[in-house]
């Protein structure tokens, strides 16, 4: 150690340090006088971030006092910094690494002192620095410090990097925390639906997913699916597990077995392809394999084809399968009654659809044998649709008794009666007993048809190449848009849950008398309402035929009214009995329902049937073998029937299914159903679609002009939106630039020298 110091001393005496000092001094002397000014200014700049001294000035404070000049010009700094190392660009933090400099040996100190004295002499007459200058830092020490600092820095970085990587990996497999910001929580496993369903499982549920490999879109889909199934596992409370099997990865016997298992479970091997680089590309990849899942719950198995790669709908399909499995295995059956015996329509078709798509609901026809039989207690609820024959009073009392037990009753009927196979489509006002029952609960139907001037059905006949031909609008079908559910129908109400649209054929207005319904304890909610532009049509027999020359025939009058009309209502609570005490041999009927009875009424004639088909069918078509079943049928009615069947009735069936959910209180899965929905369509509320006035034909020149005007208005809105969006931003930023440029020029011009 001492040798080194000696060497250094020698260097100082003869050499290196002094040279470095000389160099610095030389640089200083060569530099123009003003060059040092900015640095000096920086050192005392009040505008500097901390308003502190320059690092150099700071260094002079930090330096050993023995070498610190008492006062004087900056040139003296050179003396202090005569270390052999080049002067560092010092800053607040860099100083932290500095160590106190070792004391110089006397010879070196003398040399430094001499130098300092010389310097002082050059500048002024003040006494020279008395204390010895510090010994220059040793190269090897500095080098080792630098190496150490570098190593520490790299080490710190590596540790930080490793922590971040490990943290992310750990989070990847453990964290399921996420916020679904969509209005309807479209992308989240429904807590009310799926999560609740999973909580009802009392046996292990295992899901096997079979997938091919090598197709990018399928691989990406499987990754999403894995995320989704992870959510099932999380909510399954240890009862749910899953595995993803790639038969392509397996070999020999294992592969054969996996494929045989998939096949045995009901999956089919299929060809799958995708274009490379998206649509329009001429190259692509084709693969073959199984893509589906097999769900096992207890002894029950079900398969789900995953070809529908719409992740938005996946939860709905998976959860419904799980529910189906659970209900089968746990023998859970929801029995829903459908009143029969009075030529109610639509039952057979509904029963077939339920059997096929919703097997967990057993829709049973209930014939009360003119009131001789009670409605079974084992039923979760009862559905009534428009009857074609009067319901006997005793049967009404039986139904009332059933409701008073705290059960659910759904009525899809009103007082509008459409005769079967009547091509004139004349309606009369007769509730066939339904009105009498509902009147007991405070619900009354008005003796008139109601038309909403803003919401009615406009059938579009699809022609060749997707061309739509608009038929005459049909005002007797209320058609509500789900996007306007705040003013039309409540699509948060279980039977209408998130339906995009609702069609109510032949509606009449209903009113509710709160007192008769049961007073305050009963909650009364209008679930379907018209807009405030309605027309009411009165008469004893009114034609609702869609052709212009027949429509409205027989009407005694019509009234334009600026008010809304209720077309659907829900009552919940201790509803008062329609027949308190029973009567006609029906006993044990309380004054009000025990517990929470539920009643839902949708005022519609022929809700579950296709009235156009019923009215237009030929009375003799298809009677003999080989005879065309449509022979002699009303062509116009059949055209309307076809459009109604294709576009509208599906929502009626969904309402039926969701009504069963409402009845059985299995409303959990409704939330899951919403995941089928995509973003809503653009509606252009400022450019409402034109509707022909009552005396205007849709193909008239005047209406065509209206439609063209509407299309032009939409196009104009689109153009405005597009160009405003593209140009406003750049224009705004350009204006800001111009303003700043102008402002700067103005300031420059205002400068006076």
């Amino acid at each position, binding site marked *: 150690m001492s040798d080194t110091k000696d060497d250094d001393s020698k260097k100082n005496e003869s050499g290196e340090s002094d040279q470095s000092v000389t160099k610095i001094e030389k640089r200083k002397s060569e530099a123009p006088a003003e060059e040092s000014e900015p640095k000096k200014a920086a050192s005392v700049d009040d505008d500097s971030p901390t308003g502190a001294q320059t690092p150099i000035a700071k260094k002079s404070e930090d330096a050993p006092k023995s070498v610190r000049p008492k006062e004087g010009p900056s040139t003296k700094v050179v003396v202090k910094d005569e270390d052999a190392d080049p002067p560092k660009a010092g800053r607040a933090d860099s100083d932290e690494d500095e160590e106190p400099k070792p004391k110089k040996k006397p010879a070196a100190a003398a040399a430094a002192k001499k130098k300092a004295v010389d310097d002082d002499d050059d500048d002024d007459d003040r006494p020279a620095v008395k204390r010895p200058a510090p010994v220059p830092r040793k190269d090897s020490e500095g080098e080792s410090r630098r190496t150490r600092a570098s190593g520490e820095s790299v080490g710190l970085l590596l540790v930080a990097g490793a922590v971040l990587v490990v943290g992310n990996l750990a989070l990847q497999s453990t964290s399921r925390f996420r916020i679904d910001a969509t209005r309807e929580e479209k992308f989240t496993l429904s807590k009310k639906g799926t999560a609740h369903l999973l909580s009802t499982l009392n046996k292990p549920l295992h899901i096997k997913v079979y997938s091919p490999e090598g197709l990018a879109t399928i691989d990406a889909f499987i990754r999403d699916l894995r995320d989704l199934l992870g959510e099932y596992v999380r909510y399954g409370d240890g009862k749910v597990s899953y595995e993803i099997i790639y038969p392509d990865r397996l070999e020999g016997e294992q592969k054969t077995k996996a494929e045989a298992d998939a096949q045995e479970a009901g999956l089919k091997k299929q060809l799958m392809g995708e274009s490379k680089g998206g649509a329009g590309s001429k190259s692509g990849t084709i693969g073959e394999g199984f893509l589906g899942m097999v769900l096992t719950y207890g002894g029950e198995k079900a398969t789900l084809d995953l070809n529908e790669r719409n992740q938005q709908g996946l939860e709905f399909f998976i959860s419904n399968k799980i529910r189906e499995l659970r209900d089968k295995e746990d023998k859970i059956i929801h029995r829903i009654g459908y009143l029969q015996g009075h030529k109610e329509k639509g039952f057979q078709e509904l029963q077939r659809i339920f059997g096929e798509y919703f097997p967990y609901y057993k829709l049973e026809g209930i014939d009360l044998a003119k009131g001789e039989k009670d409605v079974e207690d084992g039923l979760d609820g009862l559905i009534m649709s428009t009857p074609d024959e009067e319901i006997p009073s005793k049967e009404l009392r039986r139904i009332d008794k059933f409701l008073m037990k705290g059960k659910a009753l759904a009525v899809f009927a009103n007082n509008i009666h459409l005769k079967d196979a009547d091509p004139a489509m004349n309606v009369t006002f007769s509730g066939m007993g339904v009105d009498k029952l509902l009147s007991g609960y405070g619900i009354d139907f008005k003796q008139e048809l109601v038309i909403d001037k803003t919401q009615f059905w406009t059938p579009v006949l699809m022609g060749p190449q997707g061309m739509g031909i608009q038929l005459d609008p049909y005002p007797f079908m209320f058609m509500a848009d789900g996007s306007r559910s705040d003013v039309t129908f409540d699509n948060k109400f279980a039977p209408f849950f998130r339906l995009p649209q609702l069609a109510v054929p032949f509606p009449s207005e209903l009113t509710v008398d709160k007192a008769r319904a049961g007073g305050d304890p009963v909650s009364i909610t209008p679930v379907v309402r018209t807009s405030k532009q309605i027309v009411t049509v009165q008469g004893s027999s009114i034609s609702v035929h869609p052709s212009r020359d027949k429509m409205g025939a027989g009407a005694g009058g019509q009234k334009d009214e600026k008010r809304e009309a209720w077309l659907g209502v829900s009552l919940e609570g201790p509803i008062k009995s329609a027949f308190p005490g029973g009567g006609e041999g029906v006993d044990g009927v309380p004054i009000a329902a025990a517990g929470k009875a539920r009643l839902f009424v949708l005022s519609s004639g022929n809700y579950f049937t296709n009235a156009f088909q019923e009215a237009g069918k030929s009375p003799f078509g298809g009677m003999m073998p080989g005879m065309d079943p449509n022979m002699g049928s009303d062509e116009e009615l059949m055209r309307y029937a076809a459009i109604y069947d294709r576009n509208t009735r599906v929502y009626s069936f969904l309402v039926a299914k969701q009504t069963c959910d409402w009845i059985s209180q299995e409303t959990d899965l409704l939330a899951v159903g919403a995941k089928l929905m995509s973003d809503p369509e653009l509606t252009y509320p400022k450019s409402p679609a034109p509707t022909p006035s009552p005396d205007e034909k849709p193909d008239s020149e005047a209406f065509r002009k209206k439609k063209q005007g509407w299309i032009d208005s939409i196009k104009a809105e689109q153009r405005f939106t597009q160009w405003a969006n593209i140009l406003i931003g750049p224009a705004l*930023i350009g204006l800001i630039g111009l303003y700043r440029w102008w402002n700067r020029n103005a300031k420059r011009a205002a400068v006076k020298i």
Partner: protein
Amino acid sequence: MNSTLIVARREFRSNFDSPIGYVVIALSLLGVGAFFFRDYWTINRATIYPLFTWLPWAFTFFVIPAITMRLFSEEKRTGTIELLITMPVRDREVVLGKYLATLALVGVLLALTLTYPLLIGRLGNLDPYPIAAGYLGMLMHASAGIAIGLFFSSVTENQIIAFMLTAVVLLGLFSIDYLGAAVGGTLGDIFAFVSFQRRLAPFGRGLIDLRHVVYFLSVTVFFLMLTTRQLESRKWK
């Protein structure tokens, strides 16, 4: 923190002292707008999801490389870095200040795209929350991208090289998901894990996943640390 904010404020202002800030914002808005409306009216849905599809590409290819390339490169080339580092601010304050200023510039760009939800909201029933989530995702993505750009700017004096390095790395990180999908298996999972696109897509749909937030923050923190160390490295060079 005060020093950081002062550096950030000065750096942010300097973006608007030269045409580069204006040009980058204007060009990217024009480009994104053109792509946004390519199929928008055909799809006819009340959503601004395409904005969150196209903006990341603009960020990756152009915006982030362009606004980060000069942050340190220019200072190094002109020598003003020495002036900056002789000021009594710590390296990390300089790095953080520049990072915040650039993030604020991206914020200005994003703010100018608010016309999309405002104007399209007039035509249909827009769901505002996924839009907010989408913007959050864009900020997260930009944050990570800027940190990367800042690092590359600190390693070279040449702005073009800094631009290219940033663009290539961001493009790689953004589109590696496609490669992951093509490769499949464990490697595919790894690619999916690091992919910016895969992490960003859920934000645009309205999903804020903690894992993705942490990932973007991790990338940001790591590259900011790397940049700080890169600046500090002059001590031992």
